[in-house]
C-alpha cells in the first residue's frame, strides 16, 4: 500500500520521460504536463490526508529494511512540503500555458519542469541523508537548465553564479554525509538520530551541525550565503522564477528543519542560538536588500531571503509554537511568493518591463489585477487578517515566550519594511501614472487571446483564494502545524516509525 509514497517522485519522472518522447510536439507536451500536474496535485492531497489520519508512513525501497536500504518517510512536515509543491507545480503548469514562449516549449521546458519537481519532492520524501543529496543533484541540474534555457547573456551570468554556489553547497553536503557516515556508520536519518546521542564525543556533533548549517544554508539562502538567489531569480521567464521563488530555497529550509529537529538536537543551546542569530541577520539583510531595489522581481527575490529568516527563527526557537509557526510560515510563504511572481509576469506581459521606473497606471486599466496583487502583497507584509499575519504573529509570540525580545523587535521591524516594499511596488506600478515615453510598447489585455488571459489569471486567482482562505480561517492550518511541530519536537515518533519500536 505504501508504494504510493513513491508517487510524488516517480510520477513526475514518468511524465517527464513520456514528454521526451513527444519532443517535437509542443501541444501534446502542454496537455500531458497540465494533466500530469493535476494528477500529482490529487495524489498529494490524498497522501496528505492519509498521513494526517494514519500517522507517519514509510516506504522501504526494494524492501530493504531500515537502516540498510533507502527509505521514504512521510511525516506531517514532509506532507506539507509535498502538498504545497504539488499546488505550486499545478499553478505553474497552468501559468506556463499562458505565458511560456514557444521556443522554450520546443526545447524541453516541460520535461525539465517535471524532473525538477521530481527532485524537489524526492528531497522532501527521503528518509536517507545520502539519497537527499541525490535529489538535490536532480533538482540542481534541472533548475540550472531551466535558468539557462534561452541563453541570454544575463541569464547565463545568473545561471553560472547559481550553479557554482549551489555546487559548493552540494560538495559540502556530500563531504558532510561522508564524515557523518565515518563517525556513525549510518545514512538513514532515523538511524543517525538514534546513534548520535550515543556518540562518545559530543564536540564533533556540533562541528557536523555547523557543516550542514553552511551547506543547507546556501540552499536556503540564509545570511550571508544567499548571493546566488538575487543573482539569478530575475533572469528567467516569470513562470520559472515563480516556481523557483516558491520551492527552491524551501528545499534548503526543509533540510534545515529536518536535520535540526531530528539529528542535531544534542546541544540546542549552541546550534539553535546560532540559528536565531543568523535568522535575525537574514531577515534584516534581505529586507534591506529589497528596499534598495527598483525592479519588480529583484524586490521580490530579496524578500524571499528575509522571509527565510522568519522560518529559520521559528526553527531556532525550538519551541512547539516556534516550530509550528515556522511550518505555517513555509506553507503560507510559498503560495504568496509564487503568486507575486505570477503577477509580476502578467505586468511584464502587458507593459513589457519589470522596471518600476518605466511602469505605472496598471490599477486604472486593470483594477482586478490590482486586487490580485494586493492580496498576496499585503499578506507578505503581514497585514491582518491575511495568512502572512498569522505566520508572523505565531513566530513573534514564540519569540516572546522564549524571552527573545530582540528577535521580536527585529521581526516586527522587518515586517514594516516588507510592507513598505510592497507599497513601493503598489505605488510605482499600480498607482503612479505611467510616463508617456515608456507607454509606447505595451499591449492591452484585449489584444491577447482569451485562452492566454484565462491561463494567466486562473493560477493567480487560485493562489490568492488559498491565501484568503488561510487568512480568514487559519485554525485548521495552525492545528496541522501544531501537530507537525509535535512530531518534529519528539523525534522518537519519527525514529519508531522508521526503525520500529524494538530497536
Amino acid at each position: 500500500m505504501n508504494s504510493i509514497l513513491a508517487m510524488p517522485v516517480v510520477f513526475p519522472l514518468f511524465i517527464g520521460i513520456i514528454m521526451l518522447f513527444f519532443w517535437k510536439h509542443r501541444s501534446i507536451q502542454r496537455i500531458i504536463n497540465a494533466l500530469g500536474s493535476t494528477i500529482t496535485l490529487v495524489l498529494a492531497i490524498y497522501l496528505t490526508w492519509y498521513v494526517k489520519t494514519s500517522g507517519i508512513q514509510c516506504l522501504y525501497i526494494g524492501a530493504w529494511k531500515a537502516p540498510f536500504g533507502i527509505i521514504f518517510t512521510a511525516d506531517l512536515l514532509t506532507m506539507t512540503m509535498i502538498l504545497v509543491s504539488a499546488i505550486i507545480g499545478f499553478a505553474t503548469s497552468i501559468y506556463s500555458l499562458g505565458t511560456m514562449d514557444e521556443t522554450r516549449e520546443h526545447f524541453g521546458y516541460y520535461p525539465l519542469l517535471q524532473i525538477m519537481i521530481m527532485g524537489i519532492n524526492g528531497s522532501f520524501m527521503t528518509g536517507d541523508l545520502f539519497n537527499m543529496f541525490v535529489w538535490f543533484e536532480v533538482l540542481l541540474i534541472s533548475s540550472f537548465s531551466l535558468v539557462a534555457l534561452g541563453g541570454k547573456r544575463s541569464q547565463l551570468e545568473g545561471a553560472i553564479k547559481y550553479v557554482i554556489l549551489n555546487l559548493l553547497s552540494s560538495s559540502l553536503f556530500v563531504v558532510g554525509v561522508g564524515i557523518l557516515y565515518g563517525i556513525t556508520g549510518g545514512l538513514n536519518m532515523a538511524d543517525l538520530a538514534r546513534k548520535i546521542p550515543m556518540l562518545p564525543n559530543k564536540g564533533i556533533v556540533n562541528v557536523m551541525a555547523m557543516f550542514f548549517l553552511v551547506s543547507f544554508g546556501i540552499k536556503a539562502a540564509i545570511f550571508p550565503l544567499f548571493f546566488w538567489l538575487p543573482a539569478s531569480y530575475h533572469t528567467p521567464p516569470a513562470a520559472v522564477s515563480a516556481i523557483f521563488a516558491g520551492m527552491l530555497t524551501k528545499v534548503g529550509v526543509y533540510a534545515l528543519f529536518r536535520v535540526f529537529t531530528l539529528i542535531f538536537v544534542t546541544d540546542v543551546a549552541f546550534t539553535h542560538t546560532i540559528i536565531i542569530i543568523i535568522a535575525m541577520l537574514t531577515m534584516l539583510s534581505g529586507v534591506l536588500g529589497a528596499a534598495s531595489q527598483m525592479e519588480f522581481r529583484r524586490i521580490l527575490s530579496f524578500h524571499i531571503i528575509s522571509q527565510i529568516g522568519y522560518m529559520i527563527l521559528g526553527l531556532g526557537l525550538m519551541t512547539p509554537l516556534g516550530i509550528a509557526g515556522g511550518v505555517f510560515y513555509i506553507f503560507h510563504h510559498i503560495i504568496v511568493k509564487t503568486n507575486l511572481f505570477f503577477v509580476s509576469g502578467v505586468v511584464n506581459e502587458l507593459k513589457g518591463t519589470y522596471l518600476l521606473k518605466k511602469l505605472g497606471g496598471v490599477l486604472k486599466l486593470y483594477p482586478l489585477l490590482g486586487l490580485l496583487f494586493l492580496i498576496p502583497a499585503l499578506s507578505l507584509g503581514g497585514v491582518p487578517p491575511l495568512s502572512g499575519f498569522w505566520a508572523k504573529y505565531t513566530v513573534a509570540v514564540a519569540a516572546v515566550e522564549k524571552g527573545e525580545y530582540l528577535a521580536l523587535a527585529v521581526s516586527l521591524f522587518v515586517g514594516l519594511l516588507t510592507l513598505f516594499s510592497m507599497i513601493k511596488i503598489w505605488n510605482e506600478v499600480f498607482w503612479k501614472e505611467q510616463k508617456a515615453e515608456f507607454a509606447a510598447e505595451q499591449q492591452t489585455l484585449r489584444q491577447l487571446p482569451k485562452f492566454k488571459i484565462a491561463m494567466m489569471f486562473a493560477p493567480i486567482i487560485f493562489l490568492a483564494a488559498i491565501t484568503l482562505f488561510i487568512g480568514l480561517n487559519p485554525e485548521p492550518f495552525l492545528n496541522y502545524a501544531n501537530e507537525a511541530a509535535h512530531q518534529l519536537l519528539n523525534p522518537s515518533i519519527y525514529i519508531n516509525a522508521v526503525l520500529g519500536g524494538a530497536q
Partner: protein
Amino acid sequence: MLIAVLSGFIVACIVPLIFKLNRKVAGALLSILPLSLFIFYLQFLPNVLAGEKILTTFYWIPSLKINLNFMIDGLNLLFALIISGIGFVVYLYASAYLAKSEKIVPFYIYISIFMASMLGVVTCNNTLALFVFWELTSISSFLLIGFNHEQERSRYAALQSLLVTAGGGLALLASVIIIGQIAGTYEISQMSAFHSNLINNALYPSILILFLIGTFTKSAQFPFHFWLPNAMEAPTPVSAYLHSATMVKAGVFLMIKFLPILGGTELWMWLLGGFGGWTMLMASTMALKQTDLKRLLAYSTVSVLGTLTMLIGLGGEKAISAMIIYLFAHSLYKGALFLTAGIIDHETGTRDIRNISGLRKYLPITALIGVLAALSGMGIIPFIGFIGKEMLYETALLSGQYSTLFITISVISAVNIFAVMAYSGILPFFGEYKSPSEHVHEAPFQMTSGPVAFALLGLVSGLFAGSTVDGLTNKALQSIFPSASHHLALFHGFNLPLLLSALTIVVGLIFVLNRKSLVEFIEKIRIPEYFFPSKWYDYIFNGTLSFAEIQTKFLQNGHLRYYIFTILALFILLVGGSFFGFNTSGSILNAFAISIERSIAGIDIYDISMLITVLIASVFALLSQGRLSAIASMGIVGALISLIYIIYGAPDLAMTQLSIETLSVILFVLVLYKLPRFFTYSKLKTRIRDLVIALAFGSIFTMIIIFVSAYGKFDTGLSEYFAQTSYLIGHGKNIVNVILVDFRGFDTMGEITVLSIAAVGVYSLLRLRKQGGEQ
C-alpha cells in the same frame, strides 16, 4: 454582532455590482448600510442605560486565543453610534460629492472596509482581534489618502500615514503580546484584574511605551502628528470621517480602555499628560497660521486629540468625564466643519481662506452650519462644546501640584482653537463677497442635510445636556470607573472656569480680528527645520534607504569570487570555530598522535612516493603560469588518487576515477583552445588573502578527517550487513555493484536522471542559442 461588524466587508465586495446596476442611486443605496448599523446599535441603548453589558463570543482561532468576542458597554456603544451615525452622513454626502468621479466605486469599497474595521476596533473585547481591525483601519486609510494617486503628493502622504500608523501598530502588537503573556488573557474585560501584576512587572515601562507608540501614532500625538495634516490629500468626506471624527480617535479610545489596565502610575500620567499637553499647545498654535481650510481643521484636530490624551493622562473620574464630553462635542462640530469645507471647496474650487469671504450670499445653509459648528468648537454657551471646555478647565484646575501649568496651556490652546474655529467656520461666510469661481450655488441636500443635523445636535445636546447626552456618557464613564457618575449642566455657577471662559472669548476675539498680524507674528518665530518631526521622518526614511543601498551593494556586489570568499569564511568561522571550541586541545592532539602512529605502522615506499608526487603536482598547478601545465598537473593528482584506490583494494572506484580524470583533462584541453591567454589578474594582496582562506579551509577539512578517522567508526552494522547479504539476498558477488543497483538502487536512478537531464539541458542550450542567432 459579528454580522453587524462583518456587514461592511460583505458590502465592500458587492459595491462594484451595485454601481453596475444603477450608478445614480448606488451611493444613496449604500448609505442604508451605516443607517441600519446605527439603528442596530441604538437598540442596545436601553440595556446599556440599565447598566447591562452585552457580550458575544465567536471562536475564530482558539489555538491562538484569538476570538471575535464583542462587547457593548457605555463607552463602546457611544463610539459605535458615533461611527455609524457619522458614517451615514458621510456615505450620503459622498454620493453627491463624488458623483462625477470615476473613482467613486473604490471609494465606497475602501470606506465600507474602514467602517467595518472601525466598528470592530471599538466593540472588540479580544485585543488580538482588535489589532486585526486596527491594522485594517490603517490600510483602508492608506488607500483613501492615496485616492488621487496620480499625484505624487497623495502617494507620499498615503505612504507616510501607513508607515507611521502601521509601524505604531506593530509596537502596539508587541505590547499586546507581552501583556497577554503576563496576564494570561487577551480579553480586555478580564485584564483589569491583572492591573497590579502589570504595573509592577519589570517590563512595565517597555510595555507602556510600546502601547503608547501604537496609540500616539494613530491619534496623531507629538512626535507622530505630522501625518495627519498631510493626510488632508484625501477627499473631504474621508477627512471628515477618518481623520477627524473616528479613526484618529481609535488611539484615544484604546487609551481610555487601558486606563484601568495600564494606568494609574506616575509614568502613565507624565507620558500622556506631557505629550498630550504639548501636542495640544503646539498644534493649536500651528493651526493659526494655516491658510488651507482643511489643514486648518487638521491641526485643530491634532490639538483636540492632544487635549483628550492629556485628560486621559490626568486620569481621574473628572478628567475622563470631561474627556468623553469633549470628544463627543468634537466629533459633531469637526465633522460638520469638514463637510462645510468640502462644500466650499466643491463650489468655489479653492480651500484657501484668503481667497474666499462673504459666501453666505450664495451658500446660506452652509453658512448656517459653519457658524453653528464653529460656535460649538469655540466653546460658546449654550453649545455642547461649552460644557466640554468648562469641564476641561475644571479638571486642569484640580490636577494638583502642576495645575498652574495645565490650566495655562489649556487656556492658551482654547484661545487658539477659538480663533481657528472662527477662521474656518465663520470668516469665509462674512464680509465682502469673494470667490475664484463664478458659479457658486448651494450644495444638494445629500451634502447639507447631514452637517445641518450635526450642527443642530451640537446646540440641542448643549441646551438640554442633562436630559440628552447625560445618560449615555454616564454609562461610558462607568465602563471605566464603575461607581462614578456626572451630571451635565450648562451653568455651574460663577466660578473660576467660567471666568477663564470669558477670558478665552475676549482674547480669542482679539485673535480673530487681528488675523494678519497674528500670523505675521507666528511666522517670525523661526524654528530650525531639524526640530520638526516630519523632517525626522524624512531623515529616518532616507537614512534607512541609503543604508539599505550601501549594505546591498557591499553584500550583493556581483562578483562571484567574493561570494565564494564569504561562504568559505563563514564555513571557517562556524565549523572551524566549533571544532576548536568544543574539542579540547588534548583530544585533538591525541587524534593526531593516533593517526601518525597508524600511518607510520602501515606506511611503505609506494605511499610516500605517491604522496610526495601529489603534493608536488598540486603546488605546481598553483604556481604554473600556463593553463595547459596547470591542467596537466591536476591530471597527475587525479591519476595518483586512483592509484591509492587500487592499493587500498577498490579497483572499481579506481577505474571510474581514472576514466573521469582522463575525460576531464581531454575536455579541458579542447576548451582551452577557445579561451583567451592566461593572465594574472589579482594583486599580491588579494592573492595572499586567498591563500590564507584556502589554507584555513583546507586545514580545517584535514583536521576534521584526521580527528574522525582516529576515533573510528561508532557502528559498522551497515557494512557488515552488506557483506553478509549481498550474495545471499542480492545475488551479486561484487558488493559495490549490489549496493549501487540494489541496496541503494534509488540513488543510482537519481544519478542517471541527472545525467540525462544534463544531456537534455546542454542540447537545448546549444540549439536554442543557435536558433536565436545570438553569440
